[in-house]
């Protein structure tokens, strides 16, 4: 059984199901938020300066894609029911920045659990696959990605079901 006192009441592998949808809530991106993040991590002129942004492919000042991703992560953590007993991220695939997130856009959307898998190599963790569908206030998708994360198994001695392996 799980022994971690911090995560004992968090959502464990056994508490989750495929098809479960987590609503991300809403975050409005101000000009200051966009410029602050970009100054630190992505100082391309089209994320910092309105004039340069208007002349660029993006057509106006917009958030770094890394910023949109970081905020999506934050929104997932804040909105995950009873918090996830996470054991760290594995990585992600097919991250697509579909449309720029402009100043004063509000992002939201959903994350759907698409797969839950246990492995025989480590009985303490399962792998959760999460499909991010992040949209702006007009319902247009701005970002998509498939994220894999390790999650604690509450009862590692439980036999592995065939579909979970």
């Amino acid at each position, binding site marked *: 059984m799980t022994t*971690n*006192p*911090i*995560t004992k009441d968090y959502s464990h592998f056994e508490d989750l199901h495929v098809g479960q949808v987590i609503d991300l809530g809403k975050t409005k991106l101000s000009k200051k938020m966009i410029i602050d993040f970009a100054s*630190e*991590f*992505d*100082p*391309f002129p*089209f994320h910092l300066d309105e004039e340069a942004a208007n002349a*660029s*492919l*993006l*057509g106006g000042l917009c958030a*770094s*894609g*890394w910023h949109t*991703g*970081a*905020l999506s*992560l*934050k929104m997932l*953590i*804040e909105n995950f029911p009873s918090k996830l007993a*996470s*054991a*760290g*991220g*594995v*990585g*992600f*695939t*097919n*991250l*697509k*920045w579909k449309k*720029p997130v402009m100043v004063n856009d509000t992002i939201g959307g959903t994350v759907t659990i698409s797969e839950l898998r246990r492995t025989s190599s480590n009985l*303490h963790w399962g792998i959760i696959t999460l499909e991010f569908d992040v949209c702006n206030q007009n319902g247009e998708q701005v970002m998509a*990605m498939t994220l894999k994360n390790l999650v604690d198994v509450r009862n590692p001695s439980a036999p592995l079901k065939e579909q979970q392996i």
Partner: protein
Amino acid sequence: MTRWYEDIEINSTLELGSHQFELKEIIEFNKQYDNQYFHTDPELAKHSHFKGIIASGWHTACVGQRKMVDALFAEEERLLSQGKQPGVSGPSPGINKMTFKTPVRPKDTVSYQLTITSKRIANSLPGWGLLFLQLDAINQRDEIVYQADIVGISKRRDFKPTLKQRFGIWAMKIPLVKRLMKR
């Protein structure tokens, strides 16, 4: 890249420099974006299987992005000082794959390296080329921190637009058309 699409050599590698992760910046980033106990609290983190606080994978990747942008600007300056015209790089359409392999702990130093693995002309974006890049982040013990397959774009110097494309580019310069197109 600050190189024109035509000048980009396949399999060429660019050293992007390194970054030492301090406890303070790890906590600061995670409190904002990845607020989980093993990312924000050195004491509570001891209960996790990491046995201590670790940086968010997203944080290590954001620093990698910063290193890449800095390297591009440095190259741009170098080209300008040689009297050459630097190319133009654009916003990334996405990342095909990112794998986090080794966690980053306070005081770890991560070195970043960018390799151009292939390129092709962007069919849906006249005047631009797609670049397929591999970013490797490696710590001071030579362990791979993460590996990413990133898609980048770069302007084509030799691009000759067709008459139809020329009209499109010209029309987009009219503010009203630009606004209509954005809808």
